[in-house]
């Protein structure tokens, strides 16, 4: 059953006791009475599967007022994970952003069955493109635009890799957009489904973009990682795709991972295998059209096994 098949009353009722939603390999139980949360879930998760009440839950989360007074006086929202409250309360109008940021935290701190990279990942023609980057590098904007140009969204924030494989697994949640990229995406893609825009958050002006139907439909289908592109938005820059060495890229992939060191030797051999079959680039850009055109014509890489000293057979 998809979320959109629930009536508003049914959705509200389930959110009282715990709406169980599947996204990629995870199930979430979500509780919260905020109408803004209900609206945003209805809009941005409408095509996600809702599971029966007795389903196994990976991550139980709730959004509640931090105390009864905060329901009425300068309303606030507190994110809960199980019995934990990992963040300070936020203004209640940030309830959906708090939910999304909370899920990012919950996954990146607990899903250690995966190697997790702080990177967007999209797929086309069976090949996954990973876009690692610091905040402000432009990866979310690129990721949103690529999805709206026909690439499949796996994740805009966390690349999930099963150790011992070269595949990225979809997470398939709404993509975060911030500040100038909101108007950019809205102007270029009037058909894009955007959630409520919230001003003055810790990240500035934020909203979320609904994944395309195909991305949700195929959210259990992984894709082999074929390219790493490290983007850098610079308003004064010409579009420039520069090949990077695998050794440098290895360091940056490890640096951008949430839990690389947690996996030790297996993490090393997994990233080694992925990079041996992938091509790595830096992309400097200011013009989104040119950047999209460059990414759309990336050549398939030639696999290159490294010389390895002291590696196990």
């Amino acid at each position, binding site marked *: 059953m998809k979320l959109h098949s629930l009536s508003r009353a049914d959705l509200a009722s389930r959110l009282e006791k715990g709406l169980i939603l599947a996204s990629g390999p995870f199930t979430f139980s979500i509780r919260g009475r905020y109408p803004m949360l209900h609206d945003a879930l209805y809009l941005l998760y409408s095509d996600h599967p809702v599971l029966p009440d007795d389903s196994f839950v990976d991550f139980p989360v709730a959004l509640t007022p931090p105390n009864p007074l905060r329901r009425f006086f300068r309303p606030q929202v507190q994110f809960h994970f199980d019995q934990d409250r990992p963040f300070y309360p936020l203004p209640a109008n940030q309830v959906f952003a708090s939910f999304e940021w909370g899920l990012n935290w919950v996954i990146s701190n607990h899903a250690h069955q995966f190697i997790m990279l702080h990177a967007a990942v999209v797929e086309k023609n069976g090949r996954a493109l990973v876009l690692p980057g610091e905040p402000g590098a432009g990866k979310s904007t690129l990721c949103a635009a690529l999805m709206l140009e026909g690439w499949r969204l796996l994740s805009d924030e966390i690349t999930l890799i099963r150790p011992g494989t070269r595949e990225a697994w979809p997470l398939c949640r709404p993509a975060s957009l911030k500040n100038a990229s909101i108007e950019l995406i809205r102007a270029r893609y009037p058909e894009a489904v955007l959630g409520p825009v919230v001003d003055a958050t810790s990240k500035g002006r934020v909203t979320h973009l609904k994944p395309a139907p195909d991305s949700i439909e195929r959210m259990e289908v992984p894709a082999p990682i074929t390219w790493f592109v490290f983007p850098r938005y610079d308003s004064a820059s010409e579009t420039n795709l520069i090949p990077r060495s*695998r050794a440098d890229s290895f360091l940056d992939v490890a640096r951008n991972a949430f839990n690389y060191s947690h996996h030790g030797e297996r993490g090393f051999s997994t990233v080694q295998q992925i990079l041996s079959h992938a091509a790595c680039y830096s992309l400097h850009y200011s013009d989104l059209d040119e950047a999209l055109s460059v990414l759309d014509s990336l050549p398939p890489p030639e696999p290159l096994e490294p010389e390895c000293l002291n590696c196990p057979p």
Partner: protein
Amino acid sequence: MSEHWFIPPSVRLQLLNWSDDADKWLCCNQATADLYLISPLGKLLLEQLDRTPKPIDQLYEAVCAASGESLTPELKKAVDHHLHTLGTLHLVESRA
């Protein structure tokens, strides 16, 4: 007494090189999952080291033999510099 250098027991090394970038070897300490980029000379030097402390003079000669270069003050200086760096990264230790 001269310095003796060795790879500590806590360090388990793997070294990778992709031929499209011959100047960089990726060095991983499997025990900690820490990663370092080293030069070909650093790689040669690590290859000459083992768990048994080795006198610095023997190390200079071994690196020379492995690299095919002659033993010059510049080469000694380069080896000293690499040993210092690898020591800072906790990949090698010295003993008087």
